[in-house]
Protein backbone atom coordinates (compact mmCIF):
# COMPACT_ATOMS: atom_id res chain seq x y z
CA UNK A 1 0.00 0.00 0.00
CA UNK A 2 1.20 3.43 -0.84
CA UNK A 3 1.10 6.16 1.82
CA UNK A 4 2.37 9.73 1.66
CA UNK A 5 3.50 11.31 4.91
CA UNK A 6 4.53 14.96 4.70
CA UNK A 7 5.07 14.53 0.98
CA UNK A 8 7.29 11.46 1.36
CA UNK A 9 5.96 8.30 -0.26
CA UNK A 10 6.45 4.81 1.10
CA UNK A 11 5.09 1.38 0.31
CA UNK A 12 3.99 -0.59 3.36
CA UNK A 13 2.26 -3.85 4.20
CA UNK A 14 -1.49 -3.73 4.85
CA UNK A 15 -2.18 -3.51 8.57
CA UNK A 16 0.62 -1.08 9.34
CA UNK A 17 -0.32 1.97 11.34
CA UNK A 18 0.50 5.51 10.26
CA UNK A 19 3.04 5.82 13.09
CA UNK A 20 4.89 2.69 12.00
CA UNK A 21 4.94 3.93 8.42
CA UNK A 22 6.29 7.29 9.58
CA UNK A 23 8.99 5.53 11.59
CA UNK A 24 9.99 3.62 8.45
CA UNK A 25 10.54 6.98 6.75
CA UNK A 26 12.16 8.46 9.84
CA UNK A 27 13.26 12.02 10.40
CA UNK A 28 11.24 15.00 11.51
CA UNK A 29 7.81 13.77 10.50
CA UNK A 30 7.74 10.90 13.03
CA UNK A 31 5.01 11.84 15.52
CA UNK A 32 6.03 11.72 19.19
CA UNK A 33 4.54 8.83 21.16
CA UNK A 34 4.16 8.67 24.91
CA UNK A 35 1.96 5.59 25.29
CA UNK A 36 2.51 3.58 22.10
CA UNK A 37 5.21 0.91 22.47
CA UNK A 38 5.91 -1.30 19.49
CA UNK A 39 6.98 -4.21 21.70
CA UNK A 40 3.78 -4.22 23.74
CA UNK A 41 0.57 -5.56 22.25
CA UNK A 42 -2.44 -3.27 22.52
CA UNK A 43 -0.51 -0.19 23.55
CA UNK A 44 -1.29 3.22 22.13
CA UNK A 45 -4.28 5.46 21.64
CA UNK A 46 -4.19 6.98 25.12
CA UNK A 47 -1.89 9.96 25.21
CA UNK A 48 -2.99 11.66 21.93
CA UNK A 49 0.54 12.97 21.35
CA UNK A 50 0.79 11.32 17.95
CA UNK A 51 -2.19 13.10 16.39
CA UNK A 52 -1.85 13.61 12.64
CA UNK A 53 -4.02 15.13 9.96
CA UNK A 54 -5.27 12.75 7.26
CA UNK A 55 -5.80 15.04 4.30
CA UNK A 56 -6.85 12.22 1.95
CA UNK A 57 -8.51 9.11 3.32
CA UNK A 58 -7.61 6.67 0.55
CA UNK A 59 -7.65 6.19 -3.20
CA UNK A 60 -11.21 4.82 -3.05
CA UNK A 61 -12.53 7.50 -0.71
CA UNK A 62 -10.40 10.63 -1.09
CA UNK A 63 -12.33 12.70 1.47
CA UNK A 64 -10.13 14.00 4.31
CA UNK A 65 -10.85 12.68 7.80
CA UNK A 66 -12.71 15.37 9.73
CA UNK A 67 -10.78 15.02 12.99
CA UNK A 68 -7.11 14.58 13.74
CA UNK A 69 -6.30 10.89 14.04
CA UNK A 70 -4.12 9.12 16.59
CA UNK A 71 -1.47 7.77 14.24
CA UNK A 72 -0.45 4.87 16.49
CA UNK A 73 -3.84 3.14 16.20
CA UNK A 74 -4.95 4.25 12.73
CA UNK A 75 -4.16 1.77 10.01
CA UNK A 76 -2.98 2.97 6.61
CA UNK A 77 -5.14 2.81 3.48
CA UNK A 78 -3.93 2.69 -0.09
CA UNK A 79 -3.21 6.19 -1.38
CA UNK A 80 -3.57 7.82 2.02
CA UNK A 81 -2.05 11.25 2.47
CA UNK A 82 -0.97 12.27 5.95
CA UNK A 83 0.31 15.60 7.25
CA UNK A 84 2.39 15.51 10.39
CA UNK A 85 4.63 18.51 10.99
CA UNK A 86 3.52 20.26 7.82
CA UNK A 87 0.07 20.82 9.31
CA UNK A 88 -0.57 23.83 11.52
CA UNK A 89 -3.49 22.01 13.14
CA UNK A 90 -1.33 19.09 14.21
CA UNK A 91 1.33 21.28 15.80
CA UNK A 92 -1.36 23.19 17.63
CA UNK A 93 -2.96 19.96 18.85
CA UNK A 94 0.38 18.63 20.04
CA UNK A 95 0.94 21.81 21.99
CA UNK A 96 -2.43 21.46 23.66
CA UNK A 97 -1.91 17.77 24.41
CA UNK A 98 1.44 18.57 26.00
CA UNK A 99 -0.24 21.20 28.12
CA UNK A 100 -2.86 18.66 29.19
CA UNK A 101 -0.26 16.07 30.09
CA UNK A 102 1.62 18.63 32.15
CA UNK A 103 -1.44 19.75 34.12
CA UNK A 104 -0.89 17.26 36.88
CA UNK A 105 2.74 16.48 36.25
CA UNK A 106 4.87 18.01 39.01
CA UNK A 107 7.73 20.29 38.02
CA UNK A 108 10.34 18.29 39.87
CA UNK A 109 12.80 17.49 37.10
CA UNK A 110 15.71 18.61 39.34
CA UNK A 111 14.79 15.81 41.75
CA UNK A 112 13.58 13.23 39.27
CA UNK A 113 15.95 10.43 38.31
CA UNK A 114 14.42 10.21 34.83
CA UNK A 115 15.48 13.76 33.92
CA UNK A 116 17.72 13.66 30.88
CA UNK A 117 16.12 10.57 29.37
CA UNK A 118 12.49 11.51 29.92
CA UNK A 119 10.08 11.43 26.97
CA UNK A 120 7.79 14.00 28.53
CA UNK A 121 10.73 16.34 29.06
CA UNK A 122 11.64 16.01 25.38
CA UNK A 123 8.03 16.50 24.33
CA UNK A 124 7.53 19.61 26.40
CA UNK A 125 10.86 20.97 25.25
CA UNK A 126 9.75 20.63 21.67
CA UNK A 127 6.03 21.34 21.86
CA UNK A 128 5.30 22.79 25.28
CA UNK A 129 5.18 26.37 26.46
CA UNK A 130 7.41 27.71 29.19
CA UNK A 131 4.51 28.95 31.31
CA UNK A 132 1.59 27.15 32.88
CA UNK A 133 -1.95 28.48 32.76
CA UNK A 134 -3.14 26.06 35.41
CA UNK A 135 -3.93 27.73 38.72
CA UNK A 136 -5.73 24.94 40.54
CA UNK A 137 -3.91 22.61 42.85
CA UNK A 138 -2.26 19.64 41.22
CA UNK A 139 -3.52 16.11 41.82
CA UNK A 140 -1.36 14.40 44.44
CA UNK A 141 -1.22 10.90 45.81
CA UNK A 142 0.08 9.40 49.02
CA UNK A 143 3.51 7.88 48.41
CA UNK A 144 3.26 4.13 48.13
CA UNK A 145 5.98 1.56 48.61
CA UNK A 146 5.87 -1.13 45.94
CA UNK A 147 8.99 -3.03 46.91
CA UNK A 148 12.70 -2.46 47.36
CA UNK A 149 13.64 -2.56 43.68
CA UNK A 150 11.19 -0.19 42.01
CA UNK A 151 10.22 3.29 43.17
CA UNK A 152 6.72 4.51 42.32
CA UNK A 153 6.00 8.24 42.11
CA UNK A 154 2.32 8.30 41.30
CA UNK A 155 2.32 12.12 41.03
CA UNK A 156 4.48 11.93 37.92
CA UNK A 157 2.40 9.27 36.17
CA UNK A 158 0.68 10.19 32.89
CA UNK A 159 -1.38 6.97 32.78
CA UNK A 160 0.07 5.59 29.57
CA UNK A 161 -0.64 1.99 30.71
CA UNK A 162 2.69 0.80 29.31
CA UNK A 163 3.76 -0.69 32.64
CA UNK A 164 0.45 -2.47 33.10
CA UNK A 165 0.84 -4.05 29.66
CA UNK A 166 4.40 -5.03 30.49
CA UNK A 167 3.20 -6.71 33.65
CA UNK A 168 0.39 -8.36 31.70
CA UNK A 169 2.39 -9.62 28.77
CA UNK A 170 5.82 -10.34 30.22
CA UNK A 171 4.98 -11.80 33.58
CA UNK A 172 2.70 -14.71 34.34
CA UNK A 173 0.66 -13.42 37.22
CA UNK A 174 0.02 -9.71 37.21
CA UNK A 175 0.20 -7.96 40.56
CA UNK A 176 0.14 -4.49 39.16
CA UNK A 177 -2.62 -2.50 37.57
CA UNK A 178 -4.63 0.69 37.48
CA UNK A 179 -7.24 1.27 40.16
CA UNK A 180 -9.98 3.92 40.36
CA UNK A 181 -11.27 5.96 37.45
CA UNK A 182 -10.86 9.30 35.72
CA UNK A 183 -8.93 11.87 37.64
CA UNK A 184 -8.44 9.46 40.54
CA UNK A 185 -6.97 6.67 38.42
CA UNK A 186 -3.68 5.45 39.80
CA UNK A 187 -1.17 2.71 39.24
CA UNK A 188 -0.85 0.33 42.12
CA UNK A 189 0.20 -3.18 42.84
CA UNK A 190 -3.16 -4.46 43.92
CA UNK A 191 -3.25 -4.75 47.69
CA UNK A 192 0.15 -2.97 47.77
CA UNK A 193 1.87 -6.28 47.12
CA UNK A 194 5.54 -6.08 46.29
CA UNK A 195 6.34 -6.89 42.69
CA UNK A 196 8.61 -9.89 42.75
CA UNK A 197 8.35 -11.10 39.19
CA UNK A 198 11.36 -12.08 37.13
CA UNK A 199 10.75 -9.42 34.47
CA UNK A 200 9.07 -6.73 36.56
CA UNK A 201 12.09 -4.42 36.26
CA UNK A 202 11.23 -3.73 32.63
CA UNK A 203 8.47 -1.43 33.86
CA UNK A 204 11.23 1.05 34.70
CA UNK A 205 12.52 1.10 31.13
CA UNK A 206 9.06 1.19 29.65
CA UNK A 207 7.88 4.17 31.72
CA UNK A 208 8.10 7.34 29.60
CA UNK A 209 8.28 9.57 32.68
CA UNK A 210 9.82 9.22 36.12
CA UNK A 211 6.85 7.47 37.70
CA UNK A 212 8.65 4.14 37.90
CA UNK A 213 12.36 4.43 38.60
CA UNK A 214 15.14 2.16 39.78
CA UNK A 215 15.29 2.23 43.58
CA UNK A 216 18.85 0.90 43.62
CA UNK A 217 19.87 3.94 41.55
CA UNK A 218 17.72 6.45 43.45
CA UNK A 219 19.48 9.83 43.69
CA UNK A 220 22.84 8.18 43.04
CA UNK A 221 23.77 10.20 40.00
CA UNK A 222 22.23 12.36 37.32
CA UNK A 223 22.05 10.33 34.12
CA UNK A 224 24.23 12.73 32.14
CA UNK A 225 27.17 12.25 34.51
CA UNK A 226 27.09 8.51 33.87
CA UNK A 227 28.94 6.93 30.98
CA UNK A 228 26.79 4.39 29.16
CA UNK A 229 28.41 1.22 27.82
CA UNK A 230 27.00 -1.69 25.88
CA UNK A 231 27.64 -4.91 27.74
CA UNK A 232 26.43 -8.50 27.83
CA UNK A 233 26.61 -11.53 30.05
CA UNK A 234 25.41 -15.12 29.85
CA UNK A 235 21.97 -15.19 31.35
CA UNK A 236 19.66 -18.20 31.22
CA UNK A 237 16.55 -16.09 31.71
CA UNK A 238 16.99 -13.28 29.18
CA UNK A 239 19.24 -12.20 26.33
CA UNK A 240 21.70 -10.58 28.74
CA UNK A 241 22.32 -7.61 26.46
CA UNK A 242 22.25 -4.41 28.49
CA UNK A 243 23.51 -0.87 28.82
CA UNK A 244 25.69 -0.24 31.87
CA UNK A 245 25.63 3.26 33.31
CA UNK A 246 29.08 3.69 34.79
CA UNK A 247 30.62 6.31 37.01
CA UNK A 248 34.35 5.72 37.02
CA UNK A 249 34.73 1.99 37.51
CA UNK A 250 31.45 1.61 39.33
CA UNK A 251 28.30 0.29 37.70
CA UNK A 252 25.54 2.48 39.04
CA UNK A 253 22.65 1.27 36.95
CA UNK A 254 21.82 -1.42 34.43
CA UNK A 255 19.12 -0.92 31.84
CA UNK A 256 18.00 -2.58 28.66
CA UNK A 257 19.27 -1.10 25.40
CA UNK A 258 16.94 1.52 24.05
CA UNK A 259 16.62 2.45 20.40
CA UNK A 260 16.12 5.91 18.87
CA UNK A 261 12.45 5.96 19.91
CA UNK A 262 13.46 5.07 23.49
CA UNK A 263 11.95 1.63 23.21
CA UNK A 264 13.92 -1.28 24.59
CA UNK A 265 15.49 -3.55 22.00
CA UNK A 266 15.16 -6.65 24.17
CA UNK A 267 13.68 -7.01 27.62
CA UNK A 268 16.06 -8.05 30.40
CA UNK A 269 15.48 -9.94 33.62
CA UNK A 270 15.66 -8.57 37.15
CA UNK A 271 18.81 -10.51 37.97
CA UNK A 272 20.75 -8.72 35.23
CA UNK A 273 19.21 -5.40 36.16
CA UNK A 274 19.56 -5.33 39.91
CA UNK A 275 21.98 -8.01 41.11
CA UNK A 276 25.05 -7.66 38.93
CA UNK A 277 26.73 -4.37 39.77
CA UNK A 278 30.28 -5.72 39.52
CA UNK A 279 32.33 -4.96 36.41
CA UNK A 280 33.69 -8.53 36.36
CA UNK A 281 30.21 -9.92 35.73
CA UNK A 282 29.99 -8.22 32.36
CA UNK A 283 31.70 -8.25 28.99
CA UNK A 284 31.87 -4.61 27.96
CA UNK A 285 31.50 -4.11 24.22
CA UNK A 286 31.99 -0.36 23.93
CA UNK A 287 30.36 2.98 24.53
CA UNK A 288 26.67 3.29 23.79
CA UNK A 289 25.82 5.96 21.24
CA UNK A 290 22.98 8.42 21.66
CA UNK A 291 21.36 11.06 19.49
CA UNK A 292 23.64 13.98 18.83
CA UNK A 293 21.62 16.45 20.88
CA UNK A 294 21.04 14.16 23.86
CA UNK A 295 22.17 15.51 27.21
CA UNK A 296 23.69 12.09 27.91
CA UNK A 297 26.44 12.91 25.41
CA UNK A 298 27.47 15.88 27.54
CA UNK A 299 31.15 15.70 28.60
CA UNK A 300 31.46 12.14 27.34
CA UNK A 301 34.55 10.85 25.65
CA UNK A 302 33.97 7.80 23.53
CA UNK A 303 37.53 6.51 23.74
CA UNK A 304 40.02 6.11 26.51
CA UNK A 305 42.71 8.77 26.41
CA UNK A 306 46.25 7.52 26.85
CA UNK A 307 48.59 9.69 28.93
CA UNK A 308 51.13 11.49 26.77
CA UNK A 309 54.69 10.36 27.42
CA UNK A 310 57.24 13.15 27.80
CA UNK A 311 60.90 12.52 28.69
CA UNK A 312 61.61 14.94 31.48
CA UNK A 313 62.10 15.09 35.22
CA UNK A 314 59.32 13.46 37.21
CA UNK A 315 58.70 16.49 39.42
CA UNK A 316 58.16 18.74 36.43
CA UNK A 317 55.62 16.39 34.91
CA UNK A 318 53.74 15.15 37.94
CA UNK A 319 54.61 17.55 40.76
CA UNK A 320 55.92 16.63 44.17
CA UNK A 321 54.73 13.35 45.71
CA UNK A 322 53.46 15.07 48.84
CA UNK A 323 51.25 17.35 46.76
CA UNK A 324 49.56 14.49 44.99
CA UNK A 325 46.58 13.93 47.28
CA UNK A 326 42.87 13.94 46.77
CA UNK A 327 41.63 17.35 47.72
CA UNK A 328 38.07 17.27 46.43
CA UNK A 329 35.35 15.22 48.13
CA UNK A 330 37.37 14.07 51.16
CA UNK A 331 34.23 12.41 52.52
CA UNK A 332 34.26 9.95 49.63
CA UNK A 333 37.64 8.21 49.89
CA UNK A 334 39.31 6.56 46.92
CA UNK A 335 39.21 2.81 46.58
CA UNK A 336 42.51 0.94 46.94
CA UNK A 337 42.81 0.35 43.22
CA UNK A 338 42.04 3.96 42.38
CA UNK A 339 44.51 5.21 44.96
CA UNK A 340 47.39 3.44 43.23
CA UNK A 341 46.55 5.05 39.90
CA UNK A 342 46.19 8.38 41.66
CA UNK A 343 49.60 8.10 43.29
CA UNK A 344 51.23 7.35 39.96
CA UNK A 345 49.65 10.49 38.61
CA UNK A 346 47.85 8.90 35.67
CA UNK A 347 44.48 10.44 36.32
Amino acid at each position, binding site marked *: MKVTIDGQEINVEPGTTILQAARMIGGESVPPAMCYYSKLKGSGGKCRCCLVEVSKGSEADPRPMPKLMASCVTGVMDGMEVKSITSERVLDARKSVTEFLLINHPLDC*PICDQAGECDLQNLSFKHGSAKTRYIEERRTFEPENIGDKIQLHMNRCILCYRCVMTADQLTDNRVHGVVNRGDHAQISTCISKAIDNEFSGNMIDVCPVGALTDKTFRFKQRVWFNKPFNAHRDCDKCCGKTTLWMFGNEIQRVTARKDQYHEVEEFICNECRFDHKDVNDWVIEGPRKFEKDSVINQNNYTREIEPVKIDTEKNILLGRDKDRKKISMPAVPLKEKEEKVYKEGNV
Partner: protein
Amino acid sequence: MSIETISLSGRKKEVSNKKMSFWESLYLVAIVKGLLITIRHLFKRKVTIKYPDQTRELSPVYRGQHMLMRDEEGRERCTACGLCALSCPAEAITMKAEERKPEEKHLYREEKYASIYEINMLRCIFCGLCEEACPKQAIYLTKSRVMVKPSSDREDFIYGKEKLVMPLDMAIKNTQMKTAN
Protein backbone atom coordinates in the same frame (compact mmCIF):
# COMPACT_ATOMS: atom_id res chain seq x y z
CA MET B 1 59.40 47.55 -2.68
CA SER B 2 61.81 44.99 -1.34
CA ILE B 3 61.09 42.58 1.47
CA GLU B 4 63.53 44.43 3.77
CA THR B 5 61.62 47.72 3.70
CA ILE B 6 58.05 46.42 3.64
CA SER B 7 56.11 47.11 6.81
CA LEU B 8 52.58 45.84 7.29
CA SER B 9 52.07 47.74 10.53
CA GLY B 10 53.59 50.92 9.14
CA ARG B 11 55.60 51.35 12.33
CA LYS B 12 58.81 49.71 11.19
CA LYS B 13 61.76 52.07 11.44
CA GLU B 14 65.15 51.63 9.95
CA VAL B 15 67.96 51.88 12.51
CA SER B 16 71.11 53.52 11.27
CA ASN B 17 74.52 54.37 12.61
CA LYS B 18 74.29 57.92 11.30
CA LYS B 19 76.53 60.44 13.15
CA MET B 20 74.63 63.00 15.24
CA SER B 21 74.88 66.65 14.35
CA PHE B 22 76.16 69.25 16.87
CA TRP B 23 72.67 70.32 18.09
CA GLU B 24 71.56 66.76 18.40
CA SER B 25 74.58 65.79 20.45
CA LEU B 26 73.75 68.52 23.00
CA TYR B 27 70.41 66.70 23.75
CA LEU B 28 68.86 70.06 24.69
CA VAL B 29 65.99 69.80 22.21
CA ALA B 30 65.25 66.23 23.21
CA ILE B 31 65.17 67.12 26.94
CA VAL B 32 62.75 70.03 26.37
CA LYS B 33 60.55 67.78 24.23
CA GLY B 34 60.40 65.16 26.96
CA LEU B 35 59.69 67.71 29.69
CA LEU B 36 56.80 69.09 27.68
CA ILE B 37 55.16 65.67 27.63
CA THR B 38 55.59 65.40 31.43
CA ILE B 39 54.13 68.86 32.06
CA ARG B 40 51.20 68.21 29.75
CA HIS B 41 50.26 65.15 31.83
CA LEU B 42 50.12 67.29 35.03
CA PHE B 43 46.97 68.93 33.71
CA LYS B 44 45.29 65.75 32.51
CA ARG B 45 42.66 63.72 34.49
CA LYS B 46 44.26 61.28 36.95
CA VAL B 47 43.82 57.61 36.10
CA THR B 48 44.68 56.30 39.58
CA ILE B 49 42.75 56.53 42.83
CA LYS B 50 44.00 56.68 46.45
CA TYR B 51 43.16 53.06 47.04
CA PRO B 52 42.54 52.31 50.71
CA ASP B 53 40.65 55.58 51.23
CA GLN B 54 38.84 55.47 47.93
CA THR B 55 37.43 52.37 46.25
CA ARG B 56 36.16 51.98 42.75
CA GLU B 57 32.49 51.40 42.10
CA LEU B 58 31.65 47.80 41.29
CA SER B 59 30.28 46.98 37.89
CA PRO B 60 26.58 46.03 37.92
CA VAL B 61 27.49 42.57 36.65
CA TYR B 62 30.18 42.03 39.30
CA ARG B 63 30.36 38.42 40.44
CA GLY B 64 31.98 37.49 43.75
CA GLN B 65 31.95 34.61 46.20
CA HIS B 66 29.25 31.94 45.68
CA MET B 67 26.48 31.34 48.18
CA LEU B 68 23.96 28.54 48.49
CA MET B 69 20.71 30.22 49.44
CA ARG B 70 18.09 29.26 51.98
CA ASP B 71 14.39 29.92 51.47
CA GLU B 72 12.07 31.99 53.71
CA GLU B 73 11.80 29.15 56.21
CA GLY B 74 15.56 28.71 56.42
CA ARG B 75 15.62 25.47 54.44
CA GLU B 76 18.32 24.81 51.88
CA ARG B 77 17.12 25.36 48.34
CA CYS B 78 19.66 23.16 46.59
CA THR B 79 18.36 19.78 45.44
CA ALA B 80 21.60 18.51 43.90
CA CYS B 81 20.15 18.41 40.39
CA GLY B 82 23.63 18.73 38.93
CA LEU B 83 22.83 21.42 36.38
CA CYS B 84 25.43 23.80 37.83
CA ALA B 85 28.08 21.10 37.56
CA LEU B 86 26.96 20.37 34.02
CA SER B 87 27.09 23.99 32.94
CA CYS B 88 30.39 24.74 34.68
CA PRO B 89 32.99 25.24 31.94
CA ALA B 90 35.84 24.82 34.41
CA GLU B 91 34.37 21.64 35.96
CA ALA B 92 34.80 23.15 39.40
CA ILE B 93 31.61 21.88 41.01
CA THR B 94 31.09 18.42 42.48
CA MET B 95 28.19 17.19 44.55
CA LYS B 96 26.62 14.13 46.06
CA ALA B 97 22.88 13.78 46.50
CA GLU B 98 21.09 12.21 49.40
CA GLU B 99 17.46 11.46 50.17
CA ARG B 100 15.85 13.62 52.82
CA LYS B 101 14.64 11.77 55.89
CA PRO B 102 11.19 12.62 57.30
CA GLU B 103 12.70 14.30 60.38
CA GLU B 104 14.85 16.60 58.22
CA LYS B 105 11.93 18.36 56.56
CA HIS B 106 12.81 21.66 58.24
CA LEU B 107 16.37 21.53 56.88
CA TYR B 108 15.89 20.85 53.19
CA ARG B 109 13.18 22.09 50.90
CA GLU B 110 12.89 19.12 48.57
CA GLU B 111 12.95 15.35 48.73
CA LYS B 112 16.56 15.28 47.63
CA TYR B 113 19.41 17.43 48.90
CA ALA B 114 23.13 17.83 48.41
CA SER B 115 24.98 16.08 51.23
CA ILE B 116 28.28 17.17 49.73
CA TYR B 117 28.60 20.29 47.61
CA GLU B 118 32.05 21.49 46.69
CA ILE B 119 33.41 24.26 44.53
CA ASN B 120 37.07 24.14 43.67
CA MET B 121 38.04 27.79 43.84
CA LEU B 122 41.31 27.10 42.05
CA ARG B 123 39.29 26.05 39.04
CA CYS B 124 36.36 28.46 39.27
CA ILE B 125 36.47 31.33 36.79
CA PHE B 126 33.48 33.24 38.24
CA CYS B 127 31.60 33.15 34.96
CA GLY B 128 28.22 32.86 36.69
CA LEU B 129 26.90 30.05 34.47
CA CYS B 130 26.02 28.00 37.58
CA GLU B 131 23.78 30.80 38.76
CA GLU B 132 22.13 30.93 35.37
CA ALA B 133 21.61 27.18 35.18
CA CYS B 134 20.13 26.75 38.67
CA PRO B 135 16.41 25.92 38.42
CA LYS B 136 15.85 26.37 42.16
CA GLN B 137 17.54 29.77 42.58
CA ALA B 138 19.88 28.09 45.04
CA ILE B 139 23.34 29.19 43.95
CA TYR B 140 24.16 32.87 43.62
CA LEU B 141 27.34 34.79 43.03
CA THR B 142 27.25 37.50 45.67
CA LYS B 143 28.55 41.06 45.48
CA SER B 144 31.14 40.22 48.13
CA ARG B 145 34.47 41.92 47.47
CA VAL B 146 36.27 38.99 49.03
CA MET B 147 36.50 36.36 46.34
CA VAL B 148 38.86 33.74 47.67
CA LYS B 149 41.03 34.19 50.74
CA PRO B 150 44.73 33.55 50.15
CA SER B 151 46.26 30.43 51.57
CA SER B 152 49.26 28.21 51.04
CA ASP B 153 47.35 24.93 51.21
CA ARG B 154 45.48 23.61 48.21
CA GLU B 155 42.87 22.02 50.48
CA ASP B 156 41.80 25.46 51.66
CA PHE B 157 40.53 26.32 48.21
CA ILE B 158 37.97 23.52 48.10
CA TYR B 159 34.93 25.25 49.47
CA GLY B 160 32.45 22.84 51.00
CA LYS B 161 28.94 23.40 52.26
CA GLU B 162 30.17 24.92 55.54
CA LYS B 163 31.61 27.83 53.56
CA LEU B 164 29.00 28.09 50.83
CA VAL B 165 25.62 27.72 52.53
CA MET B 166 24.06 30.98 53.66
CA PRO B 167 24.42 31.41 57.45
CA LEU B 168 21.17 30.74 59.29
CA ASP B 169 21.05 34.12 61.05
CA MET B 170 21.33 35.80 57.65
CA ALA B 171 18.33 33.82 56.42
CA ILE B 172 16.37 34.77 59.55
CA LYS B 173 17.22 38.43 59.03
CA ASN B 174 16.15 38.24 55.37
CA THR B 175 12.79 36.76 56.31
CA GLN B 176 12.25 39.40 59.01
CA MET B 177 13.03 42.14 56.49
CA LYS B 178 10.55 40.66 54.03
CA THR B 179 7.73 40.36 56.58
CA ALA B 180 8.41 43.86 57.91
CA ASN B 181 7.88 45.42 54.50
